[in-house]
């Protein structure tokens, strides 16, 4: 058992090293920008962990969409699918879930219990559909998914804009947002007295399921094999890579789609243009910090949830623009990559 613990702890150590390196560079940049790093970091920590309620209502709530999109990216990347389109898939999911939910404004009580699961399914299906376009273009036409998933993000954003100021606009017709979803479609609260909703639990359960699938099933093995090398996987003659690639796209899209609807059903209650501040992109950083391990996506998402929850406090209490946080996320990606390469180089030197 000791050996296995060591193997499990090494990635955690690497992630910690990357975090420390990021904080050091971020502190230096803050100092150059004329801010006090100590003041900024302490505001950030207070904002994210200052009280039990801050942790549950802000950090964990912010972590929820990052957890689901982070899983989406981790699974896709592990299977060699460069899905940069979680943002668009998130919007597609949110739109589909909301469209279903607001169609049944009277749903309530025991007779309305079906609405939430149906909306969840609709969101997952819409996210998967949004990922199916790049999947078809990659497998049938050989068009790289990096570009197509990026382009699909913009189509989704504009589609959302159109829908919330057109067909799905609230009945009052004042703001560019949908009507409020009926109570039966909302996700229940997880902790009474806090804003934490059942979406977080759903994310944790899905992370566990994804981890089991990737590490303990033949399907997961196929995904990892295709991700390691499509050509080698096909040359083994055991299976074709294309169905695996399709599956990775669809699962990834479905998870990102869920993220969008879970945010509406658990937090906002309505859909509007700027629903996501870029979670689909931050998800890349989350997945990478988790080293593409679905189980590790949970703590990685909490780290980024804390950054985002603390970012607001940093702006309020220390006068540091929130945009710093997004820059810091990018630093973290680079730090993870650098730590990775550094370790590899060290291994090679040892022979």
């Amino acid at each position, binding site marked *: 058992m000791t050996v296995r613990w060591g193997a499990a702890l090494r990635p955690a150590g690497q992630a910690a090293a990357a975090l420390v390196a990021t904080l050091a560079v971020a502190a230096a940049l803050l100092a150059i920008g004329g801010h006090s790093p100590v003041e900024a970091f302490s505001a950030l920590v207070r904002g994210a962990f200052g009280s039990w309620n801050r942790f549950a209502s802000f950090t964990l709530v912010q972590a929820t969409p990052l957890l689901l999109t982070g899983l989406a990216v981790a699974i896709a990347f592990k299977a060699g699918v460069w899905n940069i389109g979680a943002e668009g898939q998130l919007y597609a999911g949110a739109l589909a879930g909301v469209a279903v939910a607001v169609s049944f404004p009277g749903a309530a009580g025991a007779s309305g219990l079906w609405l939430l699961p149906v909306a969840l399914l609709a969101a997952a299906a819409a996210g998967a559909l949004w990922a199916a376009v790049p999947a078809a273009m990659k497998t049938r036409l050989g068009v790289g998914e990096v570009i*197509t998933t990026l382009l699909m993000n913009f189509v989704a954003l504009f589609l959302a804009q159109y829908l919330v100021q057109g067909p799905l606009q609230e009945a009052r017709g004042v703001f560019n947002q949908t009507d409020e979803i009926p109570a039966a479609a909302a996700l229940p609260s997880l902790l009474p007295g806090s804003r934490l909703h059942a979406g977080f639990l759903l994310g944790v359960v899905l992370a566990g399921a994804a981890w089991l699938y990737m590490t303990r099933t033949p399907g997961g093995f196929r995904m990892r094999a295709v991700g390691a090398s499509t050509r080698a996987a096909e040359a083994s003659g055991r299976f074709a890579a294309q169905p695996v690639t399709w599956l990775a796209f669809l699962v990834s899209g479905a998870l990102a789609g869920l993220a969008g609807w879970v945010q509406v059903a658990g937090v906002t209650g309505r859909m509007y243009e700027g629903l996501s501040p870029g979670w689909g992109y931050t998800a890349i950083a989350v997945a990478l910090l988790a080293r593409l391990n679905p189980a590790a996506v949970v703590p990685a998402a909490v780290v980024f949830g804390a950054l985002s929850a603390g970012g607001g406090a940093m702006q309020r209490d220390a006068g540091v623009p929130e945009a710093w946080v997004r*820059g810091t996320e990018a630093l973290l990606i680079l730090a993870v990559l650098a730590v990775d390469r550094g370790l590899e180089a060290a291994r090679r030197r040892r022979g």
Partner: protein
Amino acid sequence: MAETAVMASFLTAAVGLAVPLALAALGETVSERAGVINIGIEGSVICGALGGALGSLAAGPYVGLAGGATAGCAAALVFAVFAVHLNTDQIITGAAVALGSLGFTGAVFQSRFGATGVALELETVPAWEVPLLSHIPIAGPALFHGAATVYLVYLLVPALWWFLFRTRWGLALRAVGEAPEAAQAAGLPVKATRTLAVLFGGLLGGLAGAHLSLVHTGTFSENMSAGKGFVAIAIVVLGRWDPRGVLAAALFFGCAEALQFALQAMDVDLPYPLLLALPYVLSLAALAGWFGRSRAPAALALPWPKRPG
């Protein structure tokens, strides 16, 4: 008469919108020909827009253009240090540089000008009118009455084509992008070539950004690159890694974006957001239709030297 006026203003809008895309895509073409896909070009564009704004405030619009080019280069330098020298994954590194640039430009902008959102007014790059040519009916004003960046595109397309396909340096650069092992065996400096190609791409990406702030809008706002760098990468594919094709693809995209103005002028009642989505849908369709006949540089996006295991 009204139709020619609509046509002329449509073309002017199309060329104006195509110029930043063409600049960024020409830069990305050079980088991808050397085997490096840099989706961080989006970061070069936004850094260029801010660099252009700061330069213009300090010492006028031409210094602004230089500032934009420098800032775009700086973003590309970060990318090159990681993706070329540390040999990290090109796509993830590019995404990080794009994300980081969007964040830090926003932070710098807010620190310097406040978060209140008062629009910044910048001195724009003056338009040059080419005698005679600018009086050609309909197309003349669109093509021959523009800022320096427009003419730069006219110069760059033939120059880059000639460089890439008719010079020994261009051959070396393409060899590095097709077969880095063979190129190294032949004595070519693979990493240095790739670094220079990426920096050149960042320089043009920065100029594209400076065009946005100093020609197109006369202001800077957060996230104003709005995915133009990402679109440029699609344009490189559509243009089949050839400067001439890239120019054509950029013009196609510029026309698709300008269509919104023409349709509005003709009272076609399409919802505005759908018009905005049109260029992205069209480029997806174009990728699906044309891609089968083109081929990316063989070593594009692959780690070099090859990673063990």
